[in-house]
């Protein structure tokens, strides 16, 4: 699927620091280093999975790409144009092409709006359709996400979590975008409902040649849906590779630990697996470790890891890793 390697999105040194203010005069005393110098491409038609543990900056990355936050530093080139430098009006126009699906299907739909209004709103805001045409489009979109078109007059509270997520998906595809950030779209759903939503996302991708940035912490699901996967830790991308290459031969010690921690629903296999247990917790992003962010928990850390931030280098074709000692896992 990455055969025609055309980069739809190019993220360059993206950095997002949230200032911390203190005292009477609201003096800035520090910053949360949520995302720190992240670079990657997203190719047209692919799904790039973005994984990591809570607080690693994966959601912030997604939001900063869509300019829901104004990045501290860096560039986000979408179809060759830098979104960070765009004027508001221009950016608003671009939003037609880039949409988002949110994690919480309860908080992301306005309870006072009917489903028809929720899905139809982007169409009228962007002056794509009006009046009766909106209704027709809404009915069509509801069918597309396998909901009854007559639901348009109902309100969000009448629906289950999975159905609400479908409404959120219908809203996101209403403008026929080319790029969608899916921010943990299935984390809040029951197991049997998750696969329904994932299958729907994949069908829509095939039908409309959509490009996804799929943010999640469920590594098994990310492997299932992604062509390529990026692993984040404390605001930095540690490893990025084709999905099979990353899961079969991870080159970063953090990726290795993360993968070994994921349980597999097979008791025979589970009894034979070796776990690589990490000590302690993720350090605070307010004061991240010097050099390599992972060095405080890394089983193979050396003095150089504290001094020098490892370069994010392409060790094998298409396989990027930020570790001084990744060669030993080749």
């Amino acid at each position, binding site marked *: 699927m990455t055969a025609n390697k055309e980069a739809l999105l190019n993220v360059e040194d993206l950095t997002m620091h949230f200032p911390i203010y203190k005292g009477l005069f609201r003096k800035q005393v520090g910053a949360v280093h949520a995302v720190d110098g992240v670079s990657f491409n997203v190719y047209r038609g692919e799904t790039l999975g973005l994984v990591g543990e809570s607080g690693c900056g994966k959601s912030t990355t997604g939001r900063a790409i869509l300019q829901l936050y104004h990045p501290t530093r860096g560039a986000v080139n979408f179809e060759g144009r830098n979104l960070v430098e765009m004027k508001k009006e221009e950016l608003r126009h671009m939003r037609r092409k880039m949409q988002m699906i949110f994690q919480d299907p309860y908080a992301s739909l306005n309870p006072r709006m009917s489903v028809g209004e929720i899905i139809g709103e982007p169409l009228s805001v962007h002056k794509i359709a009006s009046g009766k045409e909106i209704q027709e489009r809404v009915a069509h979109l509801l069918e597309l996400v396998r909901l009854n078109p007559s639901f348009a007059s109902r309100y969000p509270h009448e629906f289950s979590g999975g159905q609400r997520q479908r409404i959120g998906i219908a809203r996101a595809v209403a403008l026929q975008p080319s790029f969608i950030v899916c921010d943990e779209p299935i984390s809040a759903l029951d197991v049997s409902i998750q696969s329904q939503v994932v*299958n729907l996302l994949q069908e829509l991708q095939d039908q409309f040649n959509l490009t996804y940035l799929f943010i999640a912490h469920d590594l098994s699901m990310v492997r299932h849906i992604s062509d390529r996967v990026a692993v984040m830790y404390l605001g930095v991308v540690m490893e990025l590779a084709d999905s099979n290459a990353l899961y079969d031969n991870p080159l970063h010690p953090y990726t290795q630990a993360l993968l070994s921690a994921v349980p597999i629903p*097979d008791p025979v296999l589970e009894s034979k697996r070796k776990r690589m247990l990490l000590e302690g917790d993720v350090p605070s992003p307010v004061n991240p470790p010097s050099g390599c962010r992972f060095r405080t928990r890394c089983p193979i850390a050396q003095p150089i890891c504290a001094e020098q931030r490892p370069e994010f280098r392409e060790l094998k074709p298409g396989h990027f890793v930020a570790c001084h000692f990744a060669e030993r896992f080749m």
Partner: protein
Amino acid sequence: MPDYLLDVQKLETTFKTPEGTIHAVNGVSFGLKEGETLGVVGESGCGKSVTMLSILGLVPNPPGEIVAGSASFAGQDLLQMSSSEIRHVRGSQISMIFQDPMTSLNPVLTIGRQLEEPLMLHLNMTKKQAEDRAAELLTMVGIPNARERLKDYPHQYSGGMRQRVMIAMALSCSPQILIADEPTTALDVTIQAQIVDLVKRLRQELGMAIVWITHDLGVVAGLAQRMLVMYGGYVVEEAEVGELYANPQHPYTLGLLNSIPRLDQKEGKKLSSIEGLPPVLYEKPTACPFAPRCKWAIDRCWAENPPLEDIGNGHRVACWVDTKTGRARS
């Protein structure tokens, strides 16, 4: 009939709500052997938590009511005990840990105070003895500088450490049974792996029986010896762990196992999903509660609720259809 440490028979629990009575648990029977780990899986609303809360007298009445059943433990029926009798069992002989370690700890009391209280209450320890034992317990669950950290408040602990504290608290009076209700659901995978590892170690050292409630078929695969699968307030399948994963019989178990992607599986294959939604039971089902979502359903499934029947090797299943052949069970 094996000798059970805890023997639950035909438990039924209902909740009265303004919309009507919800039949949460509809005749659940199971046994727990000494030192055994039992995995209980099912989706939200299947009755897995309410079953355990009922046994420990933790269902608030009203709105909840235990309408039938028995739970014998050490020659006594837990369901018939007075609130002071059951309080004595709870904590000293059977303890429970919950999903959210933040809300189960009191934020205004130090960790030490919360650990020492049950020791002084149940084991009649002096303040000094309790403090020593509390420090010992914290060390046992892998918290460094235990004596110092007794003086800290819950917010000074991370999520994984709080769950360790909950485990320490649950084990403080050396219970014979530990009931863990989704203890790792709120945690990241690497922290989950730490907690599972800790529980395995403690199980070996202390020899208690464990009931591990979860919706994640992966976690229990490496932990449990026997499994219960619940749906709509019923146990629909019960088997040894190896047997259940290798030879699942009930359509719901099959659906669950096929709808989750596995970490060791390459991407691409479409997930099979269970269509429809889990039921909300305003009436006690007279037919199979899974029939509306079942692709094997035959006429009988809509008329009669199948009982849990032994099909050999201690494997029990509640289904009119043999899913291996697709024909009705004789």
